[in-house]
């Protein structure tokens, strides 16, 4: 692992405050901290809470669809739940999980004394959190895209604006740290691979989220006044829908590659044969950012040869090229494992499984964008999101198991981390795979009742509900395990070996 401790320098005053002033001082030390480890942990904690909420919503949505002829929840609420699942998974789970881990770890990896503009980053975390609370409240009050309550829809757009602003600020702080605060002598090419992936993701978010913000400004003003130009509340999903699907969500999955490569880097003692290839692979994935900035998704039109020729290049660029990047990273990781006699790190399992799920989702996205398959507006799209979103969560759990000892000084039990990783794999596959099948059968997206198609409709939805439920339990179990381990687990005794900066440089 490539990390140095910056905590002793940055939180000395905060720690003393906590012991001096009891609970108030303790809270103050956490909530007003400028220590990047604590800021990152705050973001991860809130994101994990959102993960549990979203996984429960996913379970509810699948349960509701088991019997397509009856409805437990009224149709208006169902639409809001579908929207909440998508928005929450992307902006409440994927983005903050990855950025939170990066905030906590990246400064240590590059030998920086602190996160650049750490108070700004803390401000960003609070803006994001406040925005997500507002978004959640607006959904409860029948807001959100297509919502029936005018004021709540306005509140939704305000909340989304805050969420975007918060993520941009945090992303800008991470990118600035990597670009300006590397230890003397460390070039960008020598940057630890996770820090590199965090840089790529951060810059990508700084460039793409403002595009969504621009659309939101129009939507908010239109909704407040005229409600004609942008279609009022019904138009929201049309105008910001591109930000809630691929290739935008690929950008949030980039750090999963960095986490896996970092774990493998330690397992192979930094002897990655083609380290530059990892940087290139991760860089290639960021090609996806060109898609979102055009505010569109790109499909392969197969009606005629001319249509194919016209749509092939953008289809390959935005949907297939990121897969190539992910495959390069995966192949190089496996090559390093094969070449060196490695000892399995427990964090490898959730990290590897997470990348596998992300890759499955990316391949599914490419298939979904081929018009001939007629998968648009089916549950196939939801399955793609679940594969990528839950894959990111699994990867983040791997990151916590891997980097946790550097944050808390204690390790997690390997067998339980591996077990939860494999159980998480089962949960994701059960939650998403049935909807790949149901998508081909024509089960409509964002619809809980009134659909029928040949095949065991109830079975796919039941299996998916079980998968979501398993995943929810995995996340909760991991939280319990992490809290127990990091409070009273085995003390990390090879910190010097695993934390040496040498592994950050090319061997």
């Amino acid at each position, binding site marked *: 692992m490539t990390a140095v401790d910056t905590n002793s320098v940055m939180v000395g005053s905060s720690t003393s405050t906590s012991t001096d002033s009891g609970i108030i001082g303790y809270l103050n030390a956490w909530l007003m901290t400028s220590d990047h*480890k604590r800021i990152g942990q705050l973001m991860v904690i809130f994101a994990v809470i959102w993960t549990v909420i979203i996984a429960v919503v996913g379970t509810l949505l699948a349960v509701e669809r088991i019997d397509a002829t009856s409805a437990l929840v009224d149709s208006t609420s169902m639409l809001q739940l579908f929207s909440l699942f998508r928005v929450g998974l992307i902006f409440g789970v994927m983005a903050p999980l990855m950025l939170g881990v990066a905030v906590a770890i990246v400064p240590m990896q590059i030998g920086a004394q602190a996160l650049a503009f750490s108070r700004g980053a803390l401000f960003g975390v609070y803006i994001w959190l406040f925005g997500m609370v507002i978004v959640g409240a607006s959904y409860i009050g029948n807001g959100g895209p297509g919502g029936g309550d005018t004021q709540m829809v306005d509140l939704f757009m305000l909340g989304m604006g805050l969420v975007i602003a918060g993520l941009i600020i945090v992303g800008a702080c991470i990118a600035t740290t990597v670009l300006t605060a590397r230890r003397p002598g460390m070039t960008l090419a020598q940057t630890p691979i996770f820090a590199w992936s965090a840089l790529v993701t951060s810059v990508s978010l700084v460039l793409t989220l403002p595009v969504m913000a621009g659309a939101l400004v129009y939507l908010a003003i239109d909704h407040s006044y005229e409600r004609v130009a942008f279609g009022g509340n019904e138009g929201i999903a049309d105008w910001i829908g591109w930000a809630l699907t691929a290739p935008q969500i690929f950008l949030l999955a980039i750090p999963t590659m960095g986490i896996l490569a970092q774990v493998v880097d330690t397992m192979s003692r930094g002897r990655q044969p083609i380290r530059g290839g990892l940087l290139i692979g991760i860089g290639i994935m960021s090609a996806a950012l060109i898609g979102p900035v055009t505010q569109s998704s790109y499909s392969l039109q197969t009606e005629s040869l001319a249509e194919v020729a016209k749509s092939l290049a953008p289809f390959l660029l935005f949907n297939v090229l990121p897969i190539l990047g992910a495959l390069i990273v995966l192949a190089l990781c496996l090559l390093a494992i094969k070449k060196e006699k490695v000892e399995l790190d427990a964090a490898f399992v959730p990290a590897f499984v997470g990348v596998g799920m992300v890759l499955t989702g990316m391949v599914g996205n490419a298939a979904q964008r081929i018009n001939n398959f007629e998968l648009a507006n089916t549950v196939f799209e939801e399955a793609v999101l679940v594969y990528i979103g839950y894959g990111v969560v699994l990867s983040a759990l791997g990151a916590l198991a891997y980097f946790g000892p550097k944050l808390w000084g204690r390790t997690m039990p390997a067998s339980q981390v591996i077990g939860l990783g494999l159980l998480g794999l089962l949960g994701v596959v059960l939650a998403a795979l049935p909807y790949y099948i149901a998508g081909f059968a024509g089960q409509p997206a964002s619809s809980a009742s009134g659909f029928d198609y040949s095949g065991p409709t109830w079975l796919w939805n039941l299996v998916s509900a079980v998968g979501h439920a398993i995943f929810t339990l995995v996340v909760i179990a991991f939280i319990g395990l992490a809290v127990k381990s990091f409070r009273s687990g085995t003390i990390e005794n090879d910190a010097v070996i695993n934390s040496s900066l040498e592994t950050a440089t090319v061997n």
Partner: protein
Amino acid sequence: MNISANALNAGPQASARRQVLVLTGLLSAASAMLVGSMLAIWLQFRANAPLRTSSDGSKMLRDWLPTNTKIPEVATNTMMITIVITCIMAQWAIYSARRSDFKHTSLALSVVLLTEVALINAQLAVYLQMNIGIRDGSYMLMFYSVTATMLALIVFGMGFTLLTLFRSFAGRLGDRDLMSAHGLYWYSLAVIFAAMWFVVYVQK
């Protein structure tokens, strides 16, 4: 919880390399993407506007800019010139600060502040002279959205100038990172404004 009891000691002190400048560059890029996306939607709406016959009946026009709406070109062109002047003054401040010239740095930043007030004043004058309601149609709604976003970026820049000016008054001329970042922000804002000026005020 024994935080980092077994972790390594802090690494060697790394010199922060122009952190404010890099952060400003990133946020300037974000601002460019924000306004750029709004202009892209503006152009999309304009391209999709229905066709109508011109008043003399000789050609077909896009029914985008309402016929009774006049854009005050003197004020908008003055804004474009003013923002260029702002950039020159910001560069003057950087030049003076490098030579530890307190008087000229403060003077240059004060002029920057003045031009920013002029920009806001000009924008308000444009609103008053156009006298259109935000509810009157798509064009009006989008016009106010784009220009108000630009105005917000200018107001943010004004805060940036005030911060730089206060630090200059406090004698911290050695903080060239901040001064350069201030200049970079205004250069990028000038480019963003130029794009908006061309699309909204020139091409309409």
